[in-house]
């Protein structure tokens, strides 16, 4: 799934209005629309598919209970993401640090991605790194980041959300978002440097 920016805010507001009016099928449509994106956000923060499933159910339940108070001051997209970010970070703070990752198998299309080829062969076609090796290394590097830095990387690098939108969701300045990304990238580079050398 390639990252998409929300380009149908009017449709969201219509579905929200119908949900507030008591139409449960309208909220189902919002679940269908937002569950893939929010799954990615939660999954890349927790690195655990089962935890992601449970947490995502909780997120949508909370959104459904709170939707009567949604006044449209922000877009529904921003509102849903804010709920997801807050609940995910709260979950991570409560979770036992000795968490076992439960990673999804990458889509086979990754092997044809030029970035994957460049990252794994490093110009040497004889030196091939398996997808799972790269996945594990990337995951380990991400887990070393703090929740705030990991969230910025997840939203910008993985999901392709623009800086300005991330700032609205996290309720920080755009400068803070860029600063967190800069620091996180440097940390990730240090973690992956050894991998590339080996």
């Amino acid at each position: 799934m390639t990252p998409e920016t929300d380009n149908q805010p009017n449709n969201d507001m219509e579905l929200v209005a119908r949900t507030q009016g008591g139409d449960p099928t309208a909220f189902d449509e919002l679940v269908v629309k937002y569950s893939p994106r929010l799954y990615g956000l939660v999954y890349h923060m927790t690195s655990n598919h089962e935890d992601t499933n449970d947490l995502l159910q909780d997120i949508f339940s909370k959104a459904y209970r709170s939707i009567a108070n949604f006044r449209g001051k922000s877009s529904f997209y921003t509102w849903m993401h804010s709920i997801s970010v807050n609940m995910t970070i709260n979950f991570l703070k409560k979770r036992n640090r000795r968490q076992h990752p439960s990673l999804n198998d990458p889509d086979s299309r990754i092997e044809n991605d030029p970035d994957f080829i460049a990252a794994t062969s490093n110009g040497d076609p004889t030196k091939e790194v398996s997808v799972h090796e790269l996945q594990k290394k990337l995951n380990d590097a991400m887990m070393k980041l703090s929740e705030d830095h990991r969230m910025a990387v997840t939203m910008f690098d993985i999901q392709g959300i623009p800086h300005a939108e991330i700032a609205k969701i996290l309720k920080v300045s755009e400068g803070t978002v860029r600063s967190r990304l800069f620091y996180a990238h440097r940390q990730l580079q240090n973690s992956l440097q050894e991998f590339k050398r080996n």
Partner: protein
Amino acid sequence: MSHEPMHRIIRLKRYEQPPEGYFDDFLREFQNRQRAELLHPSIGELILERFHAILSEIRVPAMAYAGAAAIAVVASVFILRLPTPEQPRAYSASYTQPPVMVPSMQPVSLRVEAPAGDRFDSLFPPSYLLRPRAANHESPLSF
């Protein structure tokens, strides 16, 4: 230092996806959970629902709460600023004193008179002489 290479590598994580059909199952699970919550709400939800129901029945105007709060604040300030009344002092006499009797005295006046021709007058303090003067019938105890 460009972080573009790092951005390209991290972006590869987007290929990590849940199994096929996951999101269809997710919606079904969510719908089942919603039905379960409607049929068996938690105790907290029940209490909150009852509280909202009671509030809606009272039909208190929204501004009434603000007015009541303002009155409470003013009353608190007024009470806190009230001057504390002085406690009457308790006197305990260790003995009973007889009434003061002022004997009738001939009024007198005081004036400073330096001793005449005394070459030591600058060294010694002046002496005070009591001289009788004309009587004044005003009560000596009047102030």
